[in-house]
């Protein structure tokens, strides 16, 4: 049995379930939109205030908290009716489960961002950044991969604990800070100045390194993490 076919089966199952129930997507989109409205009123104290240098931070803090909501739910459904046992009974490499769950979470985060970024631009960005869309998308993908790989690993570890709703943020938020710093810096530069790949290279490399570290870490530990 090929791991690729099993990967596709798990991703397809998660997408069908989510598109049917919209449990995760609706709560994440609502959270993101409400957070932006609150930011809009909280930071627009004076007419004409320049929020450009806050934009990257606002955007990524919103995405990270929205993802926390989604991560808790993505494993809650596996615990329903002990579906996780059914999955673990299958002859599937545990790393395939990790990669498929990470890919599913990545798809959900990208859907949220496809809705949220235009709304965010409408509220907070004064200059058009369409010319810098490619570097922005690269930063988005690299940061998303880090958020989803770390988030999936930690959601797996915390799902078997009684205080998983508390444990996940306690583990996730400190560890995601490096991604937050790099993604915020890169995004703010793009929104404020419009910058090419050259000045973002170090931040992108950092994000790539973070992604690699947590993908490898999950590779080595996921069997243990998803076990007992």
């Amino acid at each position, binding site marked *: *049995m090929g791991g690729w*076919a099993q990967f596709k089966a798990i991703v397809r*199952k998660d997408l069908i*379930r989510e598109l*049917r129930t919209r449990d995760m997507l609706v709560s994440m989109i609502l959270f993101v939109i409400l957070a932006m409205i609150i930011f809009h009123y909280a930071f627009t104290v004076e007419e004409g205030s320049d929020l450009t240098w806050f934009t990257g931070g606002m955007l990524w803090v919103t995405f990270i908290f929205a993802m926390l909501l989604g991560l808790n739910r993505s494993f809650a*459904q596996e615990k329903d009716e*002990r*579906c996780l046992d059914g999955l673990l*009974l299958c*002859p599937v490499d545990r790393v395939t489960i990790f990669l498929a769950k990470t890919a599913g979470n990545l798809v959900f985060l990208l859907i949220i961002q496809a809705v949220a970024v235009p709304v965010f631009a409408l509220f907070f960005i004064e200059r058009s950044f369409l010319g810098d869309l490619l570097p922005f998308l690269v930063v988005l993908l690299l940061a998303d991969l880090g958020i989803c790989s770390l988030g999936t690993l930690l959601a797996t570890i915390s799902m078997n604990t009684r205080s998983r709703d508390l444990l996940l943020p306690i583990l996730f938020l400190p560890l995601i800070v490096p991604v937050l710093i790099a993604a915020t810096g890169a995004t703010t530069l793009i929104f404020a100045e419009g910058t090419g790949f050259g000045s973002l290279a170090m931040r992108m490399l950092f994000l790539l390194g973070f992604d690699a570290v947590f993908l490898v870490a999950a590779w080595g530990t996921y069997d243990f993490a998803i076990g007992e």
Partner: protein
Amino acid sequence: MSDGQDRQDGGAPLEIEVEGLRKTFGRREVLKGLSFGVPRGGFLSIFGPNGAGKTTTLRVLATLLTASAGTVKVAGHDVREDPMPVRRAIGLISHNAMLYPDLTAQENLRFYADMYGLTDADERISDLLERLELSARRYDVVRTYSKGMRQRLAIARAVLHRPRVLLLDEPHSGLDPRAVDILDGLLAEIRDEHTFVMVTHNIAKGLEWGTKLMIIEGGRIAYEHAAGVDHDAFSAVYREHVHDGSVL
């Protein structure tokens, strides 16, 4: 001996071999050195009170828990060292359906068929749904099913990949009489081709199906006997070994 399948029990090679199985959760030792074997085609009925370690034993056989000590082989493969062939060889029917409530019966079985790499998935799914009288509801989400229907679908999930060994954890629990009949009918149909381990509180069912009977109490085997014991005699033995046990 070099391979578990070389060992014999009453003439048939052993399909399940357990030697000195111990399982600890924190400081609590739940299994305290179980040793038993089930020959190919055998049916082991395990009885015992709640908390005796029956389900833990089954979950170790199913590779869902790792033994703290001892060796466990299923279908000739060590469950810890070589779990993939074990997972291909086993099916688990539990009182938890292990089905995704927001997917249809068809989608649930298709998912598991893909996970097991079945090449004849469509035919197999249609055949099982027909036999389990679920064809008419195959495109309904499982959330709308009754407990009995879910349990029937759980049976289809467990036997979908044609496992050699079936592990049954309280399979009759919560079933209506019709679902019990369907489950028993299916078990009778596949009885000769499979090896079974059934954990149950239902002594009548355990005696009806079992070729070997076992009582686990406090993480140890308190009683082990070949089939052929009548209900009253076994109930007396059960009461003797399990002080707080109620028997059915």
